[in-house]
């Protein structure tokens, strides 16, 4: 047996699950959510949309292929989705103490240890998932033996978008391996024939940046509340991000201004919710969200269907869309909104993750559509 400390996951309703600690030995609190993906824990852990959350993986074996190297910069990692781990903790049935993969630079446990994130294994994650399914996502805490207790704290009461967004605008105008540089309104604008896309960073996954760069676009990444309307851009992209969209009123205001400018706008996940809010629709919190690699969506009014990667706790209420807007994609399991578009103007967005990473890549064409509009 591996000699490890006990760790207890307690939900706010008092339900307890006992397991063992790996990675960092420390106690934390966060919103407990489950993800049914079978691969992609390095990507998920660094996905800013998980800020403040304790991630439960339903796939029982964790850490099998270790963790890839931290190539690139904090602003654009090569194999990860941001500069650091955003999950508060990760919980699984079983942890592989010996990983195996040619690309692995270290084990998951080592990485968690380095970044101060506790891992828990030996928990009946299926029972836990069923509990969350029946009672909804809820706040919980991981208390590791000998590390003291913590109080419950709901991350959704904070502006998580602000916490994960970049502080200063920056420009990417090389390839996916190049370093960004500081944005300077004078020198950063155009001139080389490359189209410029402003990416509003609500907690963006780096693969959104990579997907845009791979299409030969210049990407100006701006903080969530930055007024980008002075920048001469060809298209606006609104990223994914954590938590409740109601905290991002500043972004919504800027999107409204951009809609008046009329250049193409595309959004992903949080971007979908913020575009919808800018259009005048409402959002609501799902009981336990969509977090998986197997969410089926249908292109509204067609026979075209796609398997998508998803990670969201809030959704757009399609019924509240104004008449000039329409649903673009619909979830085939629960009928919730999976994207919207303007009936006449080049504004559209997806609730799922066309940039994948992790997950299926079947909808990456959305970036092509966006590029074609510029």
């Amino acid at each position, binding site marked *: 047996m591996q000699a490890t400390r006990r760790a207890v996951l307690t939900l706010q309703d008092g339900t307890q*699950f006992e397991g063992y600690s790996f990675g960092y030995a420390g106690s934390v609190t966060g919103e407990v959510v489950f993800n049914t993906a079978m691969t992609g824990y390095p990507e998920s852990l660094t996905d800013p949309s998980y800020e403040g959350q304790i991630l439960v993986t339903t796939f029982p074996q964790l850490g099998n292929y270790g963790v890839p190297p931290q190539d690139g910069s904090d602003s654009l990692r090569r194999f990860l989705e941001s500069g650091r781990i955003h999950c508060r903790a990760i919980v699984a*049935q079983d942890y592989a103490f010996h990983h195996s993969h040619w690309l692995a630079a270290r084990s998951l446990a080592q990485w968690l240890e380095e970044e101060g994130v506790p891992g828990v294994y030996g928990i009946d994650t299926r029972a836990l998932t069923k509990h969350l399914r029946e009672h909804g996502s809820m706040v919980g805490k991981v208390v590791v033996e000998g590390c003291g207790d913590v109080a419950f704290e709901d991350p959704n009461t904070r502006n998580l978008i602000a916490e994960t967004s970049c502080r200063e605008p920056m420009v990417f105008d090389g390839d996916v391996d190049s370093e960004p540089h500081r944005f300077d309104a004078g020198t950063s604008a155009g001139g080389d024939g490359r189209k410029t896309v402003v990416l509003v960073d609500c907690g963006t996954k780096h693969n959104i940046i990579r997907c845009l760069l791979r299409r030969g676009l210049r990407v100006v990444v701006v903080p969530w509340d930055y007024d980008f309307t002075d920048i001469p851009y060809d298209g606006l992209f609104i990223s994914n991000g954590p938590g409740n969209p109601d905290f991002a009123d500043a972004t919504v205001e800027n999107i409204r201004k951009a809609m008046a400018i009329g250049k193409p706008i595309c959004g992903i996940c949080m971007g979908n919710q913020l575009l919808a809010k800018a259009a005048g629709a409402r959002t609501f919190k799902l009981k336990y969200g969509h977090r998986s690699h197997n969410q*089926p969506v249908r292109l509204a009014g067609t026979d*075209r*269907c796609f398997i998508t990667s998803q990670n969201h706790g809030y959704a757009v209420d399609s019924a509240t869309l104004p008449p000039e807007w329409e649903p673009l994609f619909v979830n085939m399991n629960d009928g919730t909104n999976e994207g919207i578009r303007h009936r006449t103007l080049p504004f559209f967005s997806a609730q799922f993750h066309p940039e994948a990473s992790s997950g*299926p890549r079947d909808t990456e064409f959305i970036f092509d559509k966006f590029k074609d509009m510029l």
Partner: protein
Amino acid sequence: MTDRKKYRKVLLLGSGALKIGEAGEFDYSGAQALKAMREEGVETVLINPNIATVQTSQGMADRIYFLPVTPTFVEKVIARERPEGILLAFGGQTALNCGVELYRSGVLERYGVDVLGTPVQAIIDTEDRELFVERLAEIGVKTIRSEAVATVDDALAVAGRLGYPVIVRAAYALGGLGSGFCDNDEELRALVAKALAFAPQVLVEKSLKGWKEVEYEVVRDAYDNCITVCNMENFDPLGIHTGESIVVAPSQTLSNDDYHFLRSQAIKIIRHIGIVGECNVQYAYDPESMDYRVIEVNARLSRSSALASKATGYPLAFVAAKLALGYGLFELTNSVTRSTSAFFEPALDYVVVKIPRWDLGKFHGVDRHIGSSMKSVGEVMAIGRTFEEALQKGLRMIGQGMHGFVENRSMNIADIDAALTSPTDRRIFVIAEAMRSGYTPERIHELTKIDLWFLYKLRNIVDTAFELEGFNDLEAVPRILLKSAKERGFSDFQIARAVLKETMDFRRSAAEVRRLRKAMGIVPVVKQIDTLAAEYPAATNYLYLTYNGTENDVDYTGDGRSVIVLGSGAYRIGSSVEFDWCSVNAMQTARRLGWRSVMINYNPETVSTDYDMCERLYFDELTFERVMDIVELEQPHGVILSVGGQIPNNLATRLDASGVNILGTSAECIDRAEDRHKFSAMLDGLGIDQPRWRELTSFADIDEFVAEVGFPVLVRPSYVLSGAAMNVCSNPDELRRFLALAANVSKEHPVVVSEFIQYAKEIEMDAVAQNGEIKAYAISEHIEFAGVHSGDATIQFPPQKLYVETMRRIKKVSARIAEALRISGPFNIQFLAKNNDIKVIECNLRASRSFPFVSKILKINFIDLATQVMLGLPVEKPAKSAFDLDYVGVKASQFSFARLGGADPVLGVDMASTGEVACIGVDTDEAILKSLLAVGLRIPRKAVLLSTGSPRQKADMLDAAHLLAKAGITIYATGGTCQFLHDNGVPAIRCYWPSTPELEPQATALLASHAVDLVVNMPKNFTGTELSNGRKIRRAAVDLNIPLLTNSRLASAFIRAFTSLPVDDMEIKSWEEY
């Protein structure tokens, strides 16, 4: 939704007899397709001679033809039935090949039959190697290319382009002669020079040995929507056939990038080829980069797709059938949740391990190494929440006396390195031994290329074993260790053996572990397979047990409404789809009678493990421990263990001792029939005759007994299924030699020697009794004389050549046995008959292999009756009897010798067939001809090679030889046979054995040039020298795909049939019409 053509009547081709590489999975696929058609109101016609399958049961297809799946017969059925569409994807390679031939010859077009689902051109694109490589190159997908060269220099040039290592294959050479791996120019030069000495060309290709092998199951609808339902990773790296490898689902060692890169490629491929339905894409994947090659694409349901369906709960064949009718995936519902869409990709929250089941010990001379060709005869699927748990379960399920990965009897391997690098069917256990003797995972990885992740997981199991072995007293083992052992898949038996070592008592100690752990609250929990990892509730009860969990997914109320049916486990020689048919029928009857039908089985190739066949399916072990776990949860009304073959039957005594209500015949009576001594004493008491036998422990006793009964004698250990390790010995020499082996087979049980009666008829009695009174019975007759295992024999029902007197005696004796054993349920007795004397040779108080055969020929479902009996309902004797039938059914056996390199394809007392068919005819000739054509025999047009063994056999064959000569077929014969034929006025050309290579014509040369298109070869006797004489000829016939018969009675029957009855005169009638 767009308009689509509405089909009224559709033809489905089955896969015929079970054979290595094409087994029960196609019963499952076909049954699902029929179910889908039925749901759509489409009338179905099924052609499948495999009478033991579930798909050929009443209520599955509207019309069933027990006919060979060959273009000739299929065309006749098409002409008769005029279906509008045909389904080719559900009957394996047999159906696919037949369909492509019908397409090419224009038959389908002539009769206006649409191929539903994947277009034939797409099938051809994937089947033809050159087209396949070309088609994938069009979209930039890499395949394994080989280049043909005729000189050493050309070979060097190719290797320079491909990069070493390369593999060299001699073109047109059988048995991999002249093939091998080369790491550099020097090795290549040597090997190619050698290969070119006996082949005009050699193929050079890049060697991917050691690469990972990964497979994706992909589905596409007519609207171009695609999903990958499951991916799977082979535990054994490339070089070992997928059918021979342990397979894990989903993949464990692929990163997200790896997984989705290969997934995207698979979707790109299915779109480009234009599949509508399901296909699998098999990859070789570099363990050191993201380089890959596509190995192959199967444009049909496959063994993998059956496994993927069971592994995920996604009914691939059912969905593929719906897509073939033109549905879009978005129009179908997930059949597990019944609320979400079928357009999705299952998320697993468990680990699945598939392990092949081999039976190589049954064949003389077979090479035990596993490699690029498939030899396994079945497989198991184990589910757990850790790899360790699933693997250990699986190793118990394969049923070869292993208790898991560790705590097995030591194997005494002389050279572990060699046993690791050149794998046999037992390599997984070699790994365990290697680890115990200090091999590190890294070292084993070097030798095997098995991924380190798997090896470290196996190491966890060994570590736990070591920890347990540190204790000598069960009470001293700490709870945390006990729990961890159970989480890593240890059985109570393994724990007991690890702790108690030699002092353990085989039964009591495991029970002691059970008691201790239960007292500590260490019990398994029941989990559902729900396709969505608990995201949505499941509406079905597809279940498994695990120790990695704290909560049951099922609420048990203890209402006593459950009836548990124990399934058959892994298919193996001697136990296969027929017991699945029995299990399914027992469940259906129980369900119909208002009970909650509960199935326990772990064979992914079956219909009984389809979660919509019963109310609760436990996809789990059939060990005593696990069955008791389930019984304790279910609190059932009772357990049925007489329909799944020998595995459940063997549990009778122990379950009974634990207070489980066994439905039907009592455990005590089952034991009386199973135990040779008790049974014999009972027969003596009843005055029923049996061949003289004795259980003996010393050579002196054996000699004395043999002096009394005379040679030949039948030698076997007691309590073994299907005649394993049984042999006929004709002289003292053979007897000594075999006894040396038998002693190794089973130390606990002494050797049983019986008199072997030659030239006796063998007769089967299949029956159902209630409270000792026979309610229904079927007597059938073997074509071959006793000496050919009943599982290999050709059997006809109703009997055509039995004396009425014999039949009456058999009925009487059976009635007395049924009464004495107070049988309530199914049973089978085997008899020998010679001159109206009958002797009992075996009695099983369970359903036998021939139950589906006699049930379907007689059209009385014996299992339905038996189940009613076991559930306590009064059963009337059916009004109909075999005498009312004006047709004959003949059951013939399918052999898979071609797959088993080196094995002598001769039949004996040990069973060797892998499957069977049965066809119906107006008389024996017609039925036998249909059924032998259905197992792959072809009618000779040119010449027959005869070497007909002993004088008696020569005489037996004389009439047939006359018929051949009359039909204008040339006869070649070896020395004695030729002389005998000439003496009796039959023209024959003499040919020569391989032992006199200077004389012409050589028998083997006649085969090699295909001058001969049927070989009849009988060994004179069972001596080693005689067997090896004919072996070369028999083996050559098998390797050259020339039909071979090795029994004079069967050969005569076949020759009589095809010389008297032209194929076109045979009656084509569906089962319903007889």
